[in-house]
Structures are given as structure tokens and as C-alpha cells.
């Protein structure tokens, strides 16, 4: 696996690259004396949390920085040619021809009004000898290479007619068709589902072998790193902290930050702490029976409903007191819809949702309001889930006011401050606005808001997927502690198997609006029965650190 080092001349060599951004608040350094090299045929992974400067590094190499940013000093040499000294026209011969690049969001990275064929042929006609019909044939050949079925027909289609994974394949064809020596892949699979991610990564690997190119892979996912990279560079705050062979990096990390990262990876011990075998005599806290959420499709002259999108189609499960049920699935599987349906944020078409024996779907008015005290929700995006115009105290008290928790304002205020402490924030947070907090802190506020009305069940809708791994670990730990102290039940909606391993007692796997398999977490993850579950678990990239295997873990 290991590429030779030292003996060969590096393909790309970066030394002391420093990039700054001129903001309204002054200039700050986003890349600080970054030095790296990539050998021919090698994959170098640059890993780091959001804001570590890894994407800026890629854009600096391509000289495609946004207008506010500029390279202050440093060298970037490709084949010993100084890229920073090239005139803009010379640089244009490097872009696409010698260095190809793919981006994180395949949905927006393609021009929506040009066919994929036009977008590939454009590169061919710019950088290769192919013209006209030849260019078209070559483009078709490349679509075939990136495993797009029926390329002769699809070449004339527009990007919106392709799925996310397919768009990323087209992007790969665009980046590679002029035969570059280096591919810069900036989080190429972050926006994709885990099964699609596995396919794209495999495609990149096989293409790399076939045309012997180097890859600069930028990612925050240690699993992807372990799967793809020969060497790893760890970045934080614009600096490269450690560069090492992949095996060495994972077995004997030198830098304390790397060690901290690894120790924060969710381990299987989590759920054992709070585990309590369900009492067979006790009634489950929440029973969902045959739940269906259908969205009407309206067509034709009068916009009559001609059919339904079956977002959730007959889902049945139950959650006991003090238990965590993980609802796992890929995007579009309907898992979030289940959560919102239970809370009646969206109408459920059929089925029963019984909380403590009472059918939630039959409640109205005051009864429904009373029921809302029992079930609350924590959302995925900590930036969209708090009203930017309200102070944290008001945010937490809103639910208490609406549901009549606490006798008066003073009492509610005391309670809000106590909750802030309980979720690990200082009391002074009460008077601040959401924008004064980091993502993790905001998520703590959101947890405090949910806890304020003393619910028994909290629906956690991907509460950590927008957070960096260190923060994710803290939030998960907080949720576990709260479960232990307050005896909460969680419906934990996630696509992240690692999180499931960490805190789920039982798991339900959703696919296309149905639960294909559910059972005890330990058993289901070890011995999945349904083919989809097997495929899902197999696609999860794993990291082996010190002999212990970790699943899909993001940094």
C-alpha cells in the first residue's frame, strides 16, 4: 500500500504556503506556513475539523480563492514548476489539464442549464486534441468509465436529471477527462449517503489505479481516510500538525490533537452505562402502529391528487421507558418524517401513535397541548433551530409559557437558569443571543429548551451530524447522562452507525418508508438479517485504532 517516499521526485510540493482573508474585522490567517508534498500515484488525505483550512489549501493550490482571500507567501510547485509565479493564462493551462478538481456539493457544482455532455466536452476541447464528434465520443467513453449506464443517451441530459451520486460521477469525468496528474477531491462524498459514498470511493480508487494519478483528498471523515489514503496530513487552525503514513497515523498518533480525536470516537461502552433490560410486564411508553405519512402528488388541469409519495408507509415500533431506539436510514428513507409525524408537526394519514396508551392522533386542542409536554424534539441544525432574534432565556421559557410549566415568570426564569447549568452552560448564557454561541453550545441550548417542559420522550433528529467529532462526543455524553439522571427515552434518528453503536439499545432500520429490520442493537449490528442492512453496514468505512475497530467516524 505504501507509496515510496523520498526516493522519487514529488509531483506536487507545497512549502510554507500562507493564505489570509481580509474581513471587515481585519485580516486573519487561514493557512499558516503549510508544507506538504504528494508523490506520483499517491493519495494524500488532508484531515481536519471544519474551519481548519483544508479547503482553503486546495483552492490556494488551484489559485481559485474567493476574492476576499489572497496567498500571502509560500511556494506551490507542480513538476517543479512554480504555480504561484505563473501568469493567469498559464494557470488556466494547469487547471483541468494537470490538476482536476471535484467539490463537495455535486448538486450545485454543475451548470444547471448545460447538458452534462457539453460540460465534459468543454474540457476536452479546451485541453485535448478532441473536437466535435470525437470529443463527444470521448465524453461518452468517460461517462462509461465513471460507470454511468446508457451514456449515449444520458450525455444529452441536464444535471437535474441525475441523482446526487451520479452528478458526482459526472464531476469526476469532468475532472479527469483531460488526463491530469493530480486530482484534488474536496470532501467528495460528504453530501452523499453512505452506500453511495462507498461506490464513489471505490470508483476513485480503481480510476487511480487505471490512469496512475495522485489524489489530494480533503475530508473530515477518518473512515474515508483509512479506506483511501497512503499518507495523512492532520490540520487544525490553518496549520499542519502531523503528517504520517496512514497505518502509523492510526496506530501511533504523535500529536496530542490526533490522540484527542481518536479518544473522542464513539465507543460501544456508551449504552452499557444506562442499559436497563425492559420489564416484560411494563407497557411501552410509545407504541407506533402501522403509521403512514403520505404526501399527495397533484397533477393535471385541476391539480387533482393523482397519487401519494409514501414517505412513511406502515411503520410499527415501540419505545420503553428509559430506552433509546435508533431509527437508522439514508436520506429519503422517511426517518425524519416519522419523528415529525409522532409530534404531529406533519399530518399522519393512517395508523396509531399511542403514548402511554393514549392515541396522540386523536387528540385536539387542550388535550394535544397537554400531550406536548411529554414529547419533545432536538433538531439537526443548531443554527436553524434557535431563533436568531431571541435571547437564550426567552427561547427556553417559550415552551414553559406555552405549556404552563412554572407558576410565574420568576419561577420559569430560575428553572431556565438551572437548566442551562444542567446542560453544561454558564448561567450568564441566559441573556445572550444564539449567535454568541458555537454549534455545540447551541445544541446544548436546544436540549435545555426541550428539557424545560419535562418530557419523558425526546426525539433526537440527527442532533450531532452537523457537529465536529470532539463536540459530537460531548453532546452524546450529555444525552447519555441526562437519560441516566432523568430516565428519559430517546427516539434517535440518525444515519451514523457509530452513533448507533454508542448509545442505542435497540435499532430499527428504515428503507423507502418502511422498517426493514429491527431488534436489539448488539445483535442487529453484528448479524444483520435483511440484505439492505447488510449492504448499509458493509458500506460504512471503518478505522482500526490500536486493534479496536471503529465505524464511520468524522473529524
Amino acid at each position, binding site marked *: 500500500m505504501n507509496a515510496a517516499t523520498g526516493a522519487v521526485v514529488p509531483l506536487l510540493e507545497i512549502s510554507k504556503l500562507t493564505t489570509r482573508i481580509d474581513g471587515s474585522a481585519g485580516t486573519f490567517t487561514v493557512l499558516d506556513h503549510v508544507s506538504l508534498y504528494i508523490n506520483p500515484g499517491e493519495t494524500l488525505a488532508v484531515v481536519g475539523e471544519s474551519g481548519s483550512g483544508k479547503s482553503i489549501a486546495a483552492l490556494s493550490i488551484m489559485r481559485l480563492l474567493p476574492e476576499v482571500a489572497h496567498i500571502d507567501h509560500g511556494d506551490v510547485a507542480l513538476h517543479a514548476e512554480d504555480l504561484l509565479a505563473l501568469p493567469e493564462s498559464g494557470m488556466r493551462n494547469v*487547471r483541468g489539464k494537470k490538476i482536476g478538481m471535484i467539490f463537495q456539493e455535486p448538486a450545485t457544482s454543475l451548470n444547471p442549464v*448545460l447538458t452534462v455532455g457539453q460540460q465534459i466536452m468543454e474540457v476536452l476541447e479546451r485541453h485535448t486534441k478532441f473536437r466535435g464528434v470525437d470529443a463527444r465520443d470521448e465524453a461518452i467513453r468517460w461517462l462509461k468509465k465513471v460507470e454511468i449506464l446508457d451514456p449515449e443517451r444520458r450525455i444529452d441530459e441536464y444535471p437535474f436529471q441525475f441523482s446526487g451520486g451520479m452528478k458526482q460521477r459526472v464531476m469526476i469525468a469532468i475532472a479527469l477527462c483531460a488526463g491530469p496528474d493530480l486530482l484534488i477531491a474536496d470532501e467528495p462524498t460528504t453530501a452523499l449517503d453512505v452506500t453511495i459514498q462507498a461506490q464513489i470511493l471505490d470508483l476513485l480508487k480503481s480510476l487511480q489505479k487505471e490512469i496512475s494519478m495522485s489524489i489530494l483528498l480533503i475530508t473530515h471523515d477518518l473512515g474515508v481516510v483509512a479506506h483511501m489514503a497512503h499518507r495523512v496530513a492532520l490540520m487544525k487552525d490553518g496549520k499542519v500538525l502531523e503528517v504520517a503514513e496512514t497505518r502509523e497515523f492510526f496506530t501511533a498518533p504523535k500529536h496530542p490533537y490526533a490522540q484527542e480525536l481518536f479518544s473522542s470516537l464513539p465507543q460501544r461502552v456508551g449504552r452499557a452505562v444506562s442499559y436497563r433490560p425492559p420489564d416484560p410486564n411494563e407497557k411501552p411508553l410509545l407504541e407506533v402502529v402501522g403509521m403512514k405519512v403520505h404526501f399527495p402528488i397533484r397533477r393535471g388541469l385541476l391539480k387533482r391528487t393523482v397519487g401519494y409519495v409514501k414517505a412513511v408507509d406502515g411503520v410499527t415500533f415501540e419505545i420503553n421507558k428509559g430506552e433509546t431506539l435508533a431509527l437508522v436510514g439514508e436520506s429519503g428513507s422517511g426517518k425524519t418524517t416519522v419523528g415529525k409525524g409522532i409530534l404531529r408537526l406533519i399530518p399522519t394519514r393512517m395508523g396509531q401513535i399511542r403514548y402511554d396508551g393514549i392515541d396522540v392522533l386523536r387528540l385536539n386542542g387542550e388535550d394535544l397541548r397537554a400531550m406536548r409536554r411529554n414529547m419533545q424534539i432536538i433538531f439537526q441544525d443548531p443554527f436553524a433551530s434557535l431563533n436568531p432574534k431571541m435571547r437564550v432565556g426567552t427561547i427556553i421559557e417559550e415552551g414553559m409559557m406555552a405549556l404552563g410549566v412554572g407558576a410565574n415568570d420568576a419561577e420559569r426564569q430560575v428553572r431556565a437558569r438551572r437548566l442551562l447549568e444542567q446542560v453544561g452552560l454558564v448561567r450568564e448564557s441566559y441573556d445572550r443571543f444564539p449567535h454568541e454561541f458555537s454549534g455545540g453550545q447551541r445544541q446544548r441550548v436546544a436540549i435545555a429548551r426541550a428539557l424545560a417542559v419535562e418530557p419523558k420522550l425526546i426525539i433526537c433528529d440527527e442532533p450531532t451530524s452537523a457537529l465536529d467529532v470532539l463536540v459530537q462526543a460531548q453532546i452524546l455524553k450529555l444525552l447519555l447522562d441526562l437519560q441516566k439522571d432523568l430516565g428519559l427515552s430517546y427516539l434517535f434518528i440518525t444515519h451514523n452507525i457509530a452513533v448507533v453503536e454508542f448509545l442505542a439499545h435497540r435499532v430499527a432500520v428504515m428503507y423507502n418508508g418502511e422498517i426493514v429490520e429491527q431488534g436489539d442493537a448488539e445483535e442487529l449490528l453484528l448479524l444483520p438479517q435483511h440484505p439492505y442492512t447488510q449492504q448499509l453496514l458493509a458500506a460504512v468505512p471503518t478505522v482500526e485504532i490500536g486493534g479496536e475497530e471503529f465505524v464511520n467516524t468524522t473529524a
Partner: protein
Amino acid sequence: MLAYITRRFLYAILILVGVNLLTFVLFFKVNTPDDIARMQLGTKRVTQEAINKWKTERGYDKPLIFNTKAQGMGMVKETIYFEKSFEMFSLNFGRADDGRDIAREIVHRAGPSLALAIPVFAVGLVVNITFALIMAFFRASYIDFVGVIVCVVLMSVSGLFYIIGGQYVMSKVLNLAPISGYQDGFAGWKFLLLPTIISVFSGIGSGTRWYRTIFLEEMVKDYVRTARAKGLSEFTVLFKHVLKNGLIPILTGAVVVIPLLFMGSLISESFFGIPGLGSYTIEAIQSQDFGVVRSMVFIGSALYIFGLLLTDISYTWADPRVRLE
């Protein structure tokens, strides 16, 4: 696709009916025929007989919506609503206060209106897009900076000043073109030159600035970065990638006003003495001829709604995402 257009068409008719009812309420309920008569007859001490006579002469003496005295269909047909408002759907607009047939007048005057409005529209669109592209190409440079300032300054001048000042400079001082007048056929070009130039010029400020914003909004999108990463030149990026995306909102936005070109321009036409629908409308407003104003409101709305329909259709033609859905 066909169902979509049919649905939009039916919706357009529904809106036109709404406009018709609204104007009816405005012109006959808020402002009763008695009010109009008193207004037209001018003097304060008007007898009820004089008012009734005026109403009978012009057909305003019938009930508003429902005629209880008539028989059969006449109950609906012999009413002010049917004769004055509903009849407009069959392009029967009745007569103006000076006794002329409004429909015929409209047909006569549409030509001169179009003779001015079409060149102004086409030249203006081309000029504004060109300037906007130049500014987008040189964005964040002095050319762009000065361009934006010039645009804001041009925007801050009232259109009336452009016309009055333009007439003064071009015709009186420089003697380049006749101040006003109109002649049918190609010989009339010299009368149209000045109003066209002035109208285009007065629209440059806001138009260019608006299109520049559209282009700049496109230029920060991800696909532009992809295009640059392909090694394309800024020129190709702008003219192949950005232009194509930016033109969708610009052209579909322009389509909506194409039918309205028939209406002409109120201000230019009256200043430059062009006998089009714009000056017709102004004269009607100034002489308080409600019949003509009502007809123009109806036609203007109908044309605008037609423009909306055209916009929907042009979207399906310009944007593959809409065309193929």
C-alpha cells in the same frame, strides 16, 4: 406540459374576470353614474332631470347588475354591468365622450405606440445587458465602481427631466431632430429617433444595475468555480456559463412586458406628440373620460395577464429544469 399551460390559461381568465369585477366596483359602485354625470355637466346646481338625460344618452340609466323589469336574458343583459363591463370581453368598448368608437380608436393608435415602444424595448434590453456584462466582467475594479456610481446618479434623475432636457438639448440647441410630431411609415423615423434615445437613456441606470446584480449573483455560484477549475478563461466563464443562467430571469422578466408594449408610454408619447395609446390614455385622464380609462384598464390588464402566460411558456422554453419536468 399541455395540462400546465391549459391550467395557467384558465387561471389567467379567472384573473381577468377578477380585474373586470374590481374595475366595475371602482367605476360604478364607488363612483356612481350620477357622480360622473354631475362631474361632466360641470356646474354645481345640476337638476336631477339633466343628470337623467345625460345618463339616458349614454346608457347609464339601467340597473347596475340585475334588471328586474326586463324579461329572460334581458334581466342580466340589460344592465350597466353587462353593457359596460362584461361586453369588454367581446372587445366592445362602447363610445368615448366625444362619440368616437373606442375599439376603432385603439386599433388606429396601436401602430404609433408600437413604433416607439418596440425600438425602446429592444435597444434598451441590449444596451442594459451589454453594460451589465461589461461591469460584471470588470467587477470589483474601477470600471465597475464608476459604473455603479453612474447608474445610481442616472437613476436619481426623474424621467421628466430626461425628456425636457433631451428635447431642449437635442432639438433646440443642437437642432438634431424635430422636437415632436409623428408620421406614418418609415419616413417617420426622424420623429422616433429622439424619443427612442431619450427613453433608452432614462432606463439605463436602473436596468443596468439590476442586471449587473443578477450576473454577480450568478458569479458566486458553485458551478462558476467548477468552470474556472476546468481552466476556462474568464471570458468563456462569463459568456458561456454565467450569461446563459443570468439570461433566464432577465428574458423571462422581459417577456411579461412585451404585450404591454401595445399600451405605449404615457409620458413619452404625450411629450413627443405621438398619437398612440399612451397619449390617448393621458387625454382621457385629463378630460375625465371614464369610458376610455375603463377600456384601457381592461386592455392593459388583459395584456399583462397574457404576458404572464407568455412568461410561463418562455420558462418552459428557456430553462431545461422546467421544460423537462
